[in-house]
Every structure is written in C-alpha cells, then in structure tokens.
C-alpha cells in the first residue's frame, strides 16, 4: 500500500473542521454583505470567495485525496496539465466580455 503513511484520524477531523469553517465563512459573508452592504465592491467579494474555494480544493486534494502523502514527482506530473486552465480561463472570460462590448456597441 503506497499511501499508508501520514494520514491519521486526527488529521481527517482537522480537515473536516477547516472545510466546515471555510464553508460557513463563505455563506456568512455572502449573506451579510448581500443584506447589509449592497455597495461593497463585487470584484473584491468574488476574489474572496475564489480564494476560499481554492483553499478548500487544496485541503480536499492534499488530505482526502492523499496528494500530500504521494511522491513529489507523481504530484507534479499528474497536476501539471491543469496549468493549461490558467490561460483558458483568462482567454474565455476576455472573450465573453468582448461579446458584451460588441453587443452593446453595435446592437
């Protein structure tokens, strides 16, 4: 068994607590800002949610999916392909925005 090392029940429970707290924080901020601070800058709020979601994704991958306990080479060569998504996201969001600009400029 390659991944027997590392994870303990204590770590599992710690990860559960982290995921729960982050989720509650996200919902709480969404509700409070939505109800009491409608003028709060939307981009900052969204950035906050994205960062917290990436944090959750990290904990799920590292602890629950054992990536923290695999060899460095395996982690690198498995996940490196996801780097392609960075440009995919930037390009397609830019594209979407261009459609909006075109539509509102030319009808």
């Amino acid at each position, binding site marked *: 068994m*390659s991944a027997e090392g590392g994870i303990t029940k204590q770590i599992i429970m710690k990860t559960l607590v982290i995921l*729960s707290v982050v989720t509650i924080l996200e919902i709480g901020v969404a509700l409070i800002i939505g109800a009491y601070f409608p003028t709060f800058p939307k981009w900052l709020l969204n950035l906050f949610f994205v960062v917290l*979601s990436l944090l959750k994704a990290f904990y*799920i991958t590292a602890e629950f999916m054992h990536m923290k306990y695999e060899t460095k*080479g395996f982690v690198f*060569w498995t996940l490196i392909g996801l780097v392609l998504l960075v440009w995919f996201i930037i390009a397609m969001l830019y594209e*979407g925005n261009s459609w909006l600009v075109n539509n509102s400029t030319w009808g």
Partner: protein
Amino acid sequence: MSAEAITQKVGNIWGGGTRPFNVRYGKMMMWFFLISDAFTFATLLIVYGTLRFSADWWPEPLNVFNTIPGVHGNSYPLVFVTIMTFILIVSSVTMVLAVYDGHHGNKKGVIKWMVYTIIGGAAFLGCQALEWTHLIHEGLSLYFNPFGPDGLVTKEAVMAGTAVAGPTHFGQLFFFITGFHGTHVLSGVVINIIILVNTVNGVYEKSGDYEMIEKVGLYWHFVDLVWVFVFLLFYLI
C-alpha cells in the same frame, strides 16, 4: 556519470518489483481519469464564465436560491444549498475513514463507513431532486428564466411584453452543470455500492488489499471537489 555508475544506480529499477512514483497502476490510472474529468468540468464552468461575462445582467443567487423544501416562504437564501454542501463534505469524510480502516485491514469499519458514504450520496441526490423540482415549478427551464431584473416573472407576462425575463443561459447552464455533477454523484453511489458488496463478500479480505476502496474514494472526493467550484460559481458569485 560513467556507464558503470549509472548501471549501479538505476540498474535494479529494470529488474521488476518497483513502481514508478511508488504508485500502483490502478491508482495512477484513476488519477489520469480524474484529470481528464477535471478538464471536462473546467470547460463547462469556463463556458459559464464566458456567457456570464457576455450578459449585461445576471440573476443574484441570493434571490434565486432562497427557499427550503417543506418550509413556507422565500426568505431563506442559501440555507438549503448549505445543507447539501455539508452532506457532501461529511460523506467525503466517511469515505476517508473507510479508506483509513481499509489500510488497517478492518473489514467491519470499511463496511460501516461505506454504508454512511452511500447514504450521504443518496441524500445529496435527493436534495438536488427537490431543488430542481422547486426551480422548475418556479418556471426555470432550458428555454425560459423567470428570474428577471424586476423579480420573479411569468412566461405569460414576458410574452405580453409587460415583464422582462432573465438571461436564458442561466437555466441552461444551471441544469446542465448541476445535472452533470449529479450524474457523477449517481455513478459514484453505484460504484460505492458495488465496492460495498465486494467488501461484504470478503473480496478484498481474501486478496489482503483494500486499495480498491482508495481508488473509488479518489473518485468520490473528486465529486466533492467539483461541487466546491459549482457552489462557488452558481451560489456565491
């Protein structure tokens, strides 16, 4: 490095009995599948982003997802989806505990935690069915979005020109992406049931190796991982 030194250093690798990256074949292939599946989901979610950026107005999640099944009124934003998220997180934890007990050769523990995981998955699917039913009753479909800039509107009012509908893309993306995720949950539950049956029959006890639990566990956690981003894009942003 001289040829002898290389032979000394790596020669035994080709003699068999070792694994690249110290990972077994099945697990590595599961990871490769998950990466390809991640690209599928990423593409869908990026399409969501593109269409949302191209829309001049988009419904506010707090005004769309604001009810709990069986509870009267529509002043409970995000409560039901929070319950769904927690069901999925907890079922992920019970899956980790099943893998943990598998590593320690504890058959009873594996069975117990697998049963909890399956119940969690089924509960999530039930919740999703309730949510879909509710939204469909409100009028959301692949062709019409009742969540317009002036609140909930009917198709008749929009046809008569007295109200403005929301962007149709919203319903299409919502049903397609949560549906695709739900299909993954469903297949995850089916796979978990198969593995549970195998465990009960002592298949892994006989082979002395519970790595299969870990492989299906990877798939199950991946479903949870995708939900993090579905939750982010549909319910938070």
